[in-house]
């Protein structure tokens, strides 16, 4: 259709104009009304869209927060508690009971507690930055103090100095802290060993244990690494003895050459370090009296052992120089800047859990488990108490404690310990057969890297044996300095999966190489991992077992890991038994954790 003259003359009026001008007044009124209504309609839609959009925006903002590594809904009533390994089983049992109560928050959410196992040292490290837990239950308040010290240092770095002298109080990483149980650190010894040391007639202390271990090569004792309260205390006691004082340990005294030489000599007598006390108990049960003569642990372990092993009794020796308490605090974290805040509901769950843990019924259960309850109205020598009528533990003890140095000195002791502890020669024997291809190999590489990073002693030596159809590569034992770490990292990164599984030959080789070092000063170990069945070795199982059981120049502990369900667990168990070590299972989700745990033995 051609445009009209008017249209040509008035192009700015638009295409509707002819229609408008051609209508009657009533039609125009109706049209006007329609336009107004349409405008109102648009306005209404815009308002509704605005509100909906705002809500969507808010939701989106929430989702962004939730996508982070440490995310939870803003009304979350699920409290995640990091628990130290020694307490984990007991704590989990109590948490199950708590969850079963089905308590609710005021807004109707069900209170839930979940736990994750971490060593106290790991709790401190993780608590400093966006932890995936809101509360922590280490074995001692020592760790909370270390956390506060490091947190305070971080805050000082972040806060701009404004020149005003603010009162330096109340700015802490932990909010509410509740203590729900306690147990003194003791030297647990078999009864005949304790009597040999002079118990019960004479006071026995760290000095006697250290002298016995130094004088008698057959004496086998152990303490955990300094990542646990009992290990830290044993180490502190050595530093005190080395410095010739019982209080006032300073950084200067702790790092004095004579002190370090003394600690090094004592540490050389430690059979190996280790992880949680419960694993140690399992090993004692499995290997019996010959496994260790004495070990440093919480008193509750002695109670627990004697309750189920009447034939071979452990005795708690309360060190004459003084000891330390594992005081089992439960602490709620405060939120740091740029972190998901601990929700009000999580705070409520924490307080409900604290109330539950300190309730009379739970406190009595903790007493049954060998802990000293925080409820002071519960007597330790009442009928039915594991402390009543036993001389293996003494509720009147300890009479004195060692002075706990400042957090800075404790940190120095922890760091210096790596240079005084018994050195390690460890071969990582790794299966890279064809079945390891894909995610398994990726996870294994990460786990091996984590293991190497955990070994921090400057005298530790680590080697790598990679096997498939045969020995693919045999990296020698070398001191783990910075250059060596880089070499190992490259070697691990370059591993490829192919071939069959010559497990026995690889273990044989590693064992032979360590024996050749003839290094009796060090902890010697093989950490063997495989995901499959032995099918390519030239040697048989019996030969290898015979070899492992023979007395050689050095004692070698063999840890074996079955990665996934396809591994020959019976064979790995047999190898571990013959090597005086442990057999463990792992999968892609926990292989790294397992390597980290095994590293604590060195």
């Amino acid at each position, binding site marked *: 259709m051609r445009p009209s003259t008017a249209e040509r003359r008035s192009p700015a009026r638009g295409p509707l104009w002819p229609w408008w001008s051609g209508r009657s007044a009533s039609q125009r009124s109706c049209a006007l009304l329609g336009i107004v209504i349409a405008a*109102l*309609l648009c306005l209404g839609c815009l308002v509704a869209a605005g509100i909906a959009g705002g809500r969507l925006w808010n939701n989106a903002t929430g989702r962004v927060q939730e996508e982070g590594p440490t995310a939870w809904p803003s009304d979350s009533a699920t409290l995640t508690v990091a628990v130290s390994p020694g307490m984990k089983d007991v704590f989990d049992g109590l948490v199950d009971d708590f969850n079963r109560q089905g308590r609710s928050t005021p807004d109707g959410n069900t209170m839930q507690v979940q736990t994750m196992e971490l060593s106290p040292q790991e709790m401190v490290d993780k608590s400093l930055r966006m932890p995936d837990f809101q509360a922590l239950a280490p074995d001692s*308040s020592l760790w909370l103090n270390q956390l506060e010290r490091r947190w305070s240092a971080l805050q000082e770095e972040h806060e701009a100095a404004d020149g005003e002298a603010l009162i330096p109080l109340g700015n802490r990483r932990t909010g509410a802290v509740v203590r729900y149980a306690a147990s003194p650190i003791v030297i647990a010894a078999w009864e005949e060993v304790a009597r040999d040391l002079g118990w019960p007639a004479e006071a026995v202390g760290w000095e006697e244990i250290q002298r016995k271990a130094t004088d008698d090569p057959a004496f086998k004792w152990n303490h955990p690494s300094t990542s646990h309260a009992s290990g830290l205390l044993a180490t502190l006691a050595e530093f005190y003895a080395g410095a010739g004082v019982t209080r006032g340990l300073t950084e200067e005294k702790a790092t004095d050459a004579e002190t370090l030489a003394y600690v090094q000599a004592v540490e050389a007598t430690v059979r190996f370090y280790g992880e949680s006390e419960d694993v140690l108990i399992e090993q004692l049960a499995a290997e019996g009296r010959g496994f260790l003569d004495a070990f440093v642990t919480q008193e509750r372990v002695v109670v627990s052992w004697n309750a189920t092993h009447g034939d071979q009794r452990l005795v708690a020796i309360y060190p004459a120089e003084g000891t330390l308490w594992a005081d089992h605090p439960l602490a709620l974290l405060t939120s740091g800047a740029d972190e998901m805040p601990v929700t009000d509901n999580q705070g409520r769950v924490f307080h409900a859990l604290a109330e539950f843990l300190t309730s009379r019924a739970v406190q009595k259960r903790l007493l049954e488990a060998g802990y000293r309850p925080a409820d*002071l109205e*519960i007597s330790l020598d009442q009928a039915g108490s594991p402390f009543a009528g036993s001389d293996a533990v003494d509720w009147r003890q300890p009479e004195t404690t060692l*002075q706990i140095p400042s957090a800075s000195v404790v940190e120095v002791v922890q760091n210096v310990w790596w240079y005084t502890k018994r050195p390690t020669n460890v071969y990582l024997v790794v299966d890279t057969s064809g079945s390891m291809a894909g995610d398994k190999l990726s996870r294994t590489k990460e786990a091996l890297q984590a293991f190497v990073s955990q070994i921090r002693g400057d005298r530790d030596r680590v080697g790598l044996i990679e096997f498939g159809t045969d020995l693919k590569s045999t990296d020698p034992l070398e001191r783990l300095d910075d250059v060596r770490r880089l070499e190992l990292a490259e070697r691990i990164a370059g591993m490829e999966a192919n071939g069959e599984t010559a497990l026995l030959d690889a273990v044989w080789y590693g064992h032979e190489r360590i024996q050749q070092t003839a290094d009796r000063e060090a902890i010697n170990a093989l950490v063997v991992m495989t995901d499959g069945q032995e099918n390519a070795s030239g040697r048989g199982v019996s030969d290898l077992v015979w070899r492992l059981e023979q007395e050689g120049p050095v004692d070698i502990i063999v840890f074996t890991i079955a990665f996934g369900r396809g591994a020959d667990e019976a064979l790995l168990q047999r190898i571990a038994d013959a090597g005086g070590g442990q057999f463990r299972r792992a999968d892609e989700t926990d292989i790294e954790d397992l390597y980290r745990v095994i590293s604590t033995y060195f």
Partner: protein
Amino acid sequence: MNRTRWIFVAIVAVAVVIVGVSLLWRALRTDPGGQLTVERPEDITVRVLTALPVEPWVRAAADDFNGSGPELDGVPLHVEVTAMDGLSALGRWDRNDFGALPANADVENLTAEQEAALEDFPTVWIPDSRYLVELANASYKERLGRDVFLTDGQYRARPIAISLFTWGIYESRAQVLEDAFAEISWRTIHDAAVAKGGWPELDGEASWGYFKLVVPNPNKNAGGLAAMIGAAGEYYGRTDISVEDLTDPAFQAWLGELMGAVTDVSSASAYTAEDFALFGYSVGDGGQLLESDLLQNMQGILTRWEDPLVLYYPDYVTWFDFPFTVWIGPETSALEKNAALAFQDHLLSAAQQESALAYGLRPANPEVAVDAATDSLFVKWADQGVEPVVPRADAMRSPNRDVLLALLRWFELNVVE
């Protein structure tokens, strides 16, 4: 389009507009920062931040109060109690962690964020001692140019209970100290602390090790600061301690030797007397702690360790008066402030003052005697040295801000570090 259709469209459009506007109305009403908030609340919450020594009693009193269904002008009241050491709270006031509004804030037109931030603002603070209120007030006066806590008038800080610092020493150890020194004082405790041979040198048991002093960590417990000020008072023989006194090298050396006998300052919790009971003489032979804390834990000590504590009253005493202090700034409403006064009246009632005796607290109301209740700990533990009437002694004056900072700094450098 015919008229009927236009009418139909118009009705739909009007309905949509009504819905849209009503949604907007609701959104504004539910927005806490909006201007359409109702003035009369459905209920009133009194948030009480209380010092640790009185917390169990205050919490029990709050439960009793809440259970009675209290109302103010027809609006139901509810008291919420949060425990926080007085010094820690002072540090938080000092940094304005609770989020008091700036001096130039438009109180009538607060943003949603400002409103939300004030939801947990304390209505009442019950610190350990009046001097903490004065220090917090001074801090805010500098920041805001006005008082936030009052010293007179209806909302003035009023003590709700009192207690003082006394020596609490395990009986077996106390006997040896008395035999050796004839008295218990900071001077004799210092001599015991520096005995190189430990307890055997004082004719005590070898198994007791060295003399171990209990002093609360001042970073977590106001009692630690009080103990050190008491020690300074006795050292100088006067009640007013200055920064110059604290920085005197001879005094610092003396205090350093004293603190060298503390077994575990670094990880000590805020609940020192409770720790004293839980860990017994293994962590401390004795120390100067709050009388009420010692009395509350006496039974636990007997149950767990058999060896009881004995109380001795020092020549220079430090009192805690636990003032009930209402925040008078615009962060809390007038209704909340008045509700706080209702709870204060409850705490000061004869019944609650008598119930404080069961917590080892001395009543603020002078008409209530310390033996007024059958469960009074002053009656129960009379044989352990607790005195209904405190022996004549000099009361230490409260530290000013500079003294407080100097002591905290000294502690940080010489004990914690």
